[in-house]
């Protein structure tokens, strides 16, 4: 297993803390040496995931917590966002998550709409699990051209 530093940020699932999570990502991405544009991508993608969790939490009676887990590797940043607020084992959680179904189809995450679409476009890899609560797992590699590989159709095409 590759070595990594792990940092966890826990915030109440409230809109005013999404910006705080964003700032944390910005700082960590900058530590890893991502470019300005890549850092902006990471900020948006992480915000989308946290926003999703906040919106999700708002449907419930009690306001929960969102955990943003970040694993800093030599060549990439992995981010896990969960909305159930309980601590989790990063490695175990990663193993559980599979690729998400095409969200253009009717899926429970369709409500995420544009947000999910942006995450997918801005990160190298995005996986989503909705068992107990929603878990978003995403990866961005250092020094990789965006959109390398396949070109995705836009939301409206």
């Amino acid at each position, binding site marked *: 297993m590759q070595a990594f530093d792990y940092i966890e940020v826990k915030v109440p699932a409230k809109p005013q803390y999404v*910006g705080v999570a964003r700032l944390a990502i910005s700082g960590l991405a900058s530590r890893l040496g991502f470019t300005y*544009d890549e850092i*902006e991508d990471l900020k948006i993608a992480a915000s989308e995931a946290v*926003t999703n969790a906040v919106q999700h939490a708002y449907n419930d009676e009690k306001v929960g917590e969102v955990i943003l887990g970040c694993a800093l590797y030599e060549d990439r940043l992995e981010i896990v966002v969960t909305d159930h607020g309980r601590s989790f084992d990063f490695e175990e959680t990663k193993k559980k998550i599979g690729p998400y179904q095409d969200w253009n189809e009717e899926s429970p995450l369709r409500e995420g709409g*544009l947000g999910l*679409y942006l995450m997918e476009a801005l990160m190298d890899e995005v996986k989503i699990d909705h068992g107990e609560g929603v878990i978003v797992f995403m990866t961005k590699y250092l020094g990789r051209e965006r959109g390398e590989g396949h070109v995705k159709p836009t*939301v*409206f095409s």
Partner: protein
Amino acid sequence: MCANIEMMMRINWKNRETDRGGEMNLQVEQVDKDLVHKFKIIGEIDIYTAPKLKEHLAKLEQAEGMEVELDLSEVNYMDSTGLGVFVGFYKEIKAHNAKLVIKGLNQRLYRLFEITGLNEIMEIEQIEGGEDDASV
């Protein structure tokens, strides 16, 4: 006739409950001239500030043939919540046979419209000049 009646509104959107250091998240300036309504949006648009932006735009009384210009040149962060507000507003505008122009987009903001394909639906303008060089 074409009297320059300018109305300037300055609204500071600070959160009353949690704002401690006077930090400003989002600000909107509005200049109305005849049938053209210009909004300058300053700050960050995310889940926290988007409802306030939406509320502000909703206050505008829509009239047939009206033109609305949104200047985003001083928006330093935006995500899908912002796009959602603009899409909603665009639908309203269309329903009133009015016109919406979103201008002042830097490369990064423009990309968000591009990725989502919204640039092909809405009228949007990038900042002119050497933006490309500046961001390298």
